[in-house]
């Protein structure tokens, strides 16, 4: 079915599927509800038979798998923070720092707490299933394709390991597996979706931090959630990737974060660079023309 989507426009749209088109499915990962249990990370590996590779102790809080990659399709980030107000000044004394700061009153979870100077952010990251997916745009073989659910999936029987999608992804999600030569990433459990099952990670999440559903519905839910949190004074909450206007025309899997994206290792203003492919070709052709001209000049240019 790869061939149905070999149009030049690879943006998320079910059109190319005609009859078999389905509503666009995605994730709303509400990190304010995450307890860092990593059930999502493990469930994903269990279901998709992703190999385990045992790392060394990282010292980066409770995170030892460190980032998304060929062998980690869900990744839980852990960020230990101190009370922002005057925290650096009172670097050595947490208690004091806590008292000086006026704590955000508890709502949702992972807030700075009264009497304590610490906040521990946990967030489960995943492929964003971009509306405009650079990885898919650049894939020369069509191994990466847009499913009837509007998700972005690699066909491992087509991928020839050219590696082009790897630096194309603005989030550093997709990667090549050393021993195997092909690239791997979240499939949004394409196999489960086709059997009307929810993805393994969402299914395993005990706190509903990972919410799976129709993208439109999830976006509305997220708006309501954001307003509620703002009302409760948790003004640092923000939606990430919920807007179709952003640089990738909206994420299929978007997030509610409690700090700036870069704190979680996410780009603040990701762009599908492939949207500049026009400029790229102009440059290439101009370069080619210049080359032609140069050669002509060298050969026909009259000697002095």
């Amino acid at each position: 079915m790869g061939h149905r989507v070999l149009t030049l426009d690879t943006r998320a749209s079910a059109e190319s599927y005609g009859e078999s088109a389905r509503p666009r499915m995605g994730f709303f990962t509400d990190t304010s509800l995450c307890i860092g249990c990593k059930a999502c990370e493990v469930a994903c590996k269990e279901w998709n038979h992703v190999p385990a590779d045992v790392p060394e102790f990282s010292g980066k809080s409770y995170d030892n798998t460190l980032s998304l990659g060929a062998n980690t399709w869900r990744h839980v980030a852990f960020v230990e923070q101190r009370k922002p107000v005057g925290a650096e000044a009172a670097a050595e004394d947490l208690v004091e720092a806590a008292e000086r700061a006026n704590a955000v009153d508890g709502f949702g979870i992972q807030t700075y707490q009264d009497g304590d100077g610490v906040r521990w952010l946990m967030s489960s990251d995943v492929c964003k299933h971009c509306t405009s997916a650079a990885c898919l745009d650049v894939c020369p073989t069509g191994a990466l394709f847009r499913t009837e659910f509007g998700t972005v999936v690699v066909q491992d029987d087509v991928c020839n390991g050219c590696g082009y999608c790897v630096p194309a992804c603005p989030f550093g999600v997709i990667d090549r597996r050393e021993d195997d030569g092909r690239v791997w990433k979240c499939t949004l459990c394409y196999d489960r979706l086709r059997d009307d099952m929810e993805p393994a990670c969402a299914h395993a999440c005990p706190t509903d931090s990972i919410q799976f559903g129709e993208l439109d519905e999830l976006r509305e839910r997220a708006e309501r959630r954001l307003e509620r949190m703002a009302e409760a004074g948790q003004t640092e909450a923000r939606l990430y990737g919920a807007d179709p206007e952003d640089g990738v025309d909206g994420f299929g899997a978007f997030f509610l974060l409690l700090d700036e994206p870069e704190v979680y290792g996410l780009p603040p203003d990701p762009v599908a660079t492939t949207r500049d492919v026009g400029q790229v070709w102009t440059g290439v052709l101009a370069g080619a023309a210049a080359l032609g001209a140069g050669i002509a000049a060298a050969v026909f240019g009259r000697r002095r």
Partner: protein
Amino acid sequence: MGSNMAECHPVGFQWVVEAKERGAKVIHIDPRYTRTSAAADLHVPLRAGSDIAFLGGVINYILENGREFREYVEEYTNARAIIREDFQDTEDLDGLFSGWDPDTRTYDPESWGYAGADHGQWATSGEQTHGAHGVELERGELPREDETLEDPNCVFQILKRHFSRYTPEVVEALCGVPAETFLKVAETLCDNSGRERTSAFVYSVGWTQHTVGVQYIRSAAIVQLLLGNQGRPGGGILALRGHANIQGSTDIPTLYNILPSYIPMPEPREEPTLATFAEMQGPSTGAWAELRSYTTSLLKAWWGDAATKDNDFCFGRIPKIDGDHSNYATMLRMLDDEVKGFFVVGENPAVGSANGKLQRLAMAHLDWLVVRDTNMIETATFWCDSPEIETGELSPEEIGTEVFFMPAAAHTEKDGTFTNTQRLLQWHHKAVEPPEECRSELHFFFHLGRKIREKLADSSEDRDRGVLDLTWDYPTLGEHAEPDAETILQEINGRNLETGELIRAYDELKDDGSTSSGSWLHTGIYADGVNQSARKKPGREQTWVAPEWAWSWPKNQRIMYNRASADPEGRPWSERKKYMWWDAEKDCWTGFDSPDFTRDKAPDYVPPEDARGLAALTGREPFIVHPDGLGWLFAPSGVVDGPLPTHYEPQESPFENPLYTQQQNPTRQLYDRAANPYNPSLSEVFPYVLTSYRLTEHHTAGGMSRTIGYLSELQPELFCEVSPQLAAERDLVHGDWATIVTTRTAIEARVLVTDRLKPLEVQGRAVNQVGLPYHWGQRGIVTGDSVNDLFSLALDANVHIQEVKAATCEVLAGRRPRGRALLEFVDEYRRKAGVTGHGS
């Protein structure tokens, strides 16, 4: 408090998250800032081992400010009971209660009794602690009481005096919790208790694993009774249990001192016959009054027709208890060559039990060892790969122990139940056949019993009749002849032996041998011939109490003592907290749950003169397992280390007990010997507080997680959590190695320096705490030193649990010495601390 719920019970924690979303306040009181703290409104760090002081402070705050739920306290608790004149408090005796015998290091609880009650014969020995059994009361009435709660000898006044010393200042000095933070907690708790609101305590082994563990929980019980949070929705003290079925293994026990449903093991001397046993262990009022019926039915379930009135229903066949045969006591006997053979089933003591080295040395003294496990674990391979091989203390050549490893079937490979923290029995069906030689416990023990009986078949020895007369005829299924689990569940449920019908509730059990039941609390689990535990009706298709999901003992009650959810007249305390109430039209108790109170007992019921058992309790006495039907603010019996909790320092502590000259719990169990030395209190050699705990990513001794790549990669190495200040004091480098030392041994761990641990100011000086997850051992995909090698055997006298939540240690930068050098290294520290390890 004392629970890291988000990490250790993540699935259950979803309900906490939901409650919080609905506006509940969540407070986490824990030495460390954990993933639970991150999800809480308030995290209160306190010094490990100081919770009684904290809760004592809460109790004092309640009493000082009159925040108790007065009507609840007056009606439903023993606040009004008058205690004997000769009772003396720790406040009078500098840290001891009356009845202390310095020679046996035990209490005679006689003087703790109700004034005027015949109490003597109920004295509980150090071994037999049967909760509420031991108080004899006429018609379940308090012999002497004072409704006004003014009498200086009434429980309420004793409570006031006892806890008056736990002021916010004392809390601050002991726990390292600033007074204002403490007061914030106390206020929040009181503001959220009463008619309209309830509050719950969640605890786990952060509370139990202390030499005063039981008293930690008693403290919470007192708070909850004073605030009226027991027997009501949203209230209670929730003990989050451990292994998926650990609750089940206490109800139908793998314990040495109780029989199914908490029937005590008979004493050899005082209780030669069923009659004397029932008389001595069972009071004549309350649910335990029927002990004889429960026991008789149990004997009928075990010995069937062989159990007759004439042979005392084979009561004599039950092994009698002659002392402490708890886990650790047995290991110590093993070390002294008094134990020949040992079954280890679903346990990994080489890593999981305190003082790991002692555990392994002890097993090297066995003739034979059987290990049944789903994985090849350290306990089965100690003879070839334990740390003692490296240090030369053990060598495979010299170990005479013959080890048999028997692969076990996992829960997915067998039928059976899990009993969860809420006493909910949930049936699980076999999903796949066990591979190769793996077999279920049921299979193993049934066929082992069968073979033993075959061998004894033509024995004429009387002592063998106990085995030969057992009903051992379970039907088996499949090629492996797996015993049918449901038949066994039916035996547990019990039958009316005349009609052959399955018992519906324990009230039906008789003491004349006409009924059988393997566990009186479980009667009704197979009512109407249906496996009630296998019910899986979705929550959305029933009431919020979801009574049709699985089955909970007793009588499928989801909240125990739920009579207390209504006021004395039987009306809900408030519309908001409506749960059970008296329906005057229908003349019965009704509501969302099934009443654990006699269904048709009216609130104004007054027992007749000769009333026994439950009938002897009035219509307004909810705590039916107690002979007086009241909640015990003061425990006249059942707790061996005192009727009231009070703060003692852990066995190993860098601080003096500022309250009394009595430093530690006087009844704590010590085994001061070469293999089990203790760090001296207040020793500069071991200046840091040491605590141990779990991570979400691993499970207990690691046999179930270090063997799985997907879990191993999440937490590959043992690490210690320390504050930036401690790191500075000892030049620890983040991510590098540290060596943690006690008088037992030294282990190495990676260093995690984090703001989540912080020094606390205790008794005017800063104390740093060192945190260690205890999941690592020699085998598996990821390996590491065993944290339990650091801890000693210092036990709570009630339940013989080890103190692994609060000890002392030294921390050094760098890795530990190897081989013999390690022994010399540790000896050096013993010398420095003046520890001989021979009864210091």
